[in-house]
């Protein structure tokens, strides 16, 4: 049985990675899951300098999901290079580094700093709804998507994955812009912008007012967008949004994702990633699927 997939020339032992920001740099969940069992670990977003993130509360629970407004707190690319990459390199897994910035220059700086590092792919987060500048603003305008993709592509030594925002009218348009800009792969969805109000205190639950909605609640939107993006471009896609089980993951794969990422589910079940890996194998066994690649985009 073959569970390995190849995206942009990089081969992953299985199609399961972690959703950026939900798994730190693997350190904490490494106590629950053997990271070497995962196709890849995708890290929390990293910026050129340390970012303090948003004030608290940063988390609010919603029906079947959650809102977060972490604000991309991260220790900056230097600490990341010195501490997190060596940690991850101890495991037999691929490393995808999520990159954030407030301006094109900041994104470029991080990508350049990572160029000579031992990481397998870069995932460019142009879709975070929780930071004022950069982030989502880039991801909602096809021209911006095109431009930042081509700028980064010039500098990156690793293949780049453009991470798209679901807060758009036409995901296909954004996917095509990223493809035109030279992206090697796409990942989606990032979070949907949401809000929760505490009616007793008559105030927003999140200090940031709005946050990013994730978890099982968003899965139908995510599957639809993966399907539309897969039909809009030839690029391989990493699908995510509400994946909590192998069944969920297989929906994304059948809709056209070559890989899947487990995010919010980690918080509810620290071994979720592993269960997805094993559940996909069990499904393939049950239905006599020899090669996972036969399932990618099989529902049309």
């Amino acid at each position, binding site marked *: 049985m073959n569970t390995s997939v190849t995206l942009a020339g990089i081969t992953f032992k299985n199609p399961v990675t972690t959703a950026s*920001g*939900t*798994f*730190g740099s693997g*350190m*904490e*969940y490494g*106590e*629950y899951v053997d990271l070497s069992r995962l196709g890849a670990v995708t890290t*929390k977003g990293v910026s050129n300098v*340390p*970012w*303090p*993130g948003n004030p*608290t*509360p*940063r*988390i*609010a*629970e919603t*029906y*079947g*999901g*959650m809102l*977060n407004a*972490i604000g991309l*707190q*991260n*220790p*900056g690319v230097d*600490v990341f290079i010195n501490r997190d990459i060596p940690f991850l390199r101890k495991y037999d897994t691929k490393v995808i580094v999520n990159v954030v910035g407030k301006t094109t220059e900041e994104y470029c700086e991080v990508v350049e700093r990572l160029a000579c590092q031992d990481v397998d792919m870069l995932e460019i987060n142009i879709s975070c709804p929780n930071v004022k500048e950069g982030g989502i603003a880039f991801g909602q305008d096809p021209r911006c998507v095109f431009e930042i993709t081509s700028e980064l592509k010039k500098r990156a030594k690793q293949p780049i994955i453009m991470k798209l925002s679901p807060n758009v009218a036409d995901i296909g348009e954004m996917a095509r812009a990223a493809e035109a800009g030279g992206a090697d792969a796409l990942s989606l969805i990032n979070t949907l912008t949401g809000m929760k109000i505490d009616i007793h205190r008559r105030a927003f639950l999140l200090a940031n007012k709005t946050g990013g909605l994730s*978890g*099982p609640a968003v899965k139908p939107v995510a599957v639809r967008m993966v399907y539309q993006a897969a039909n809009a471009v030839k690029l391989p896609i990493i699908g995510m949004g509400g994946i909590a089980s192998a069944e969920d993951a297989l929906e994304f794969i059948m809709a056209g994702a070559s890989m899947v990422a487990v995010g*919010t589910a*980690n*918080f*509810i*079940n*620290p*071994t979720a990633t592993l269960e997805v890996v094993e559940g996909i194998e069990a499904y393939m066994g049950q239905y006599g699927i020899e090669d996972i690649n036969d399932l990618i985009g099989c529902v049309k």
Partner: protein
Amino acid sequence: MSVAMKRKTVITENVEIAKDIYSMWLNAPDISREARPGQFVSLYCRDRSKLLPRPISICEINKEQGKIRLVYRIAGEGTREFAGMDAAEDMEAMGPLGNGFTLEGKKALLIGGGIGIPPMLELAKQLSCEKQIVLGYRDITFLEKEFEAYGKVYISTEDGSRGTKGNVIDAIREESLDADIIFACGPTPMLRGVKAYATEHKIKAQLSLEERMACGIGACLGCICKTKEVDHHSNVKNKRICKDGPVFYAEEVEL
């Protein structure tokens, strides 16, 4: 220390000890073996529309019987679900989580406010030095009898129905309590008051903080508190309450 896996535990008792306040004993040998005062567990709801774990402090540890006690208030839908559960039912829990209190000092002041009172009980049991215990309530009191075995208990109530009328600091000032170490858990305004008092009197203080959590193990950066110095993990002035805390020295954190 072994890993705090998510596990199935069994409720052995779940009773209302004051209006909307419940005491639950869980049969959880793995958790009780590792647990220290000031640590917490994450409880999971059965109703899967509520996804996130509910952090609840460990109130008592019975290592011989492999049990832990939690005392919680109905604050919303998750704790309402817990309140409806009966002995012999399963409860999914992960823990023990967090750092817990450091046992230290010669003369201690244990300060609990509202639903911050429960973790003080196991601390009072394990702390061998001289103890003065200050418990602050809005109106209805709970657990205060159980503290009497471990030290002198002072009570404050907002409505003045018991003990000092006012908050815990009012009680401490009224009784002119002094100490070389303070342990405190309660709402942030109370902890701010405790920190001010401790600074004023140059008393070392360990404060147990609270924040909305998602992962509970330090991965999501949801539950940070502002710190005075740049923190080693974050490389900014943010410590994680679930992992680096919930207990911090007063001078470390900005409240």
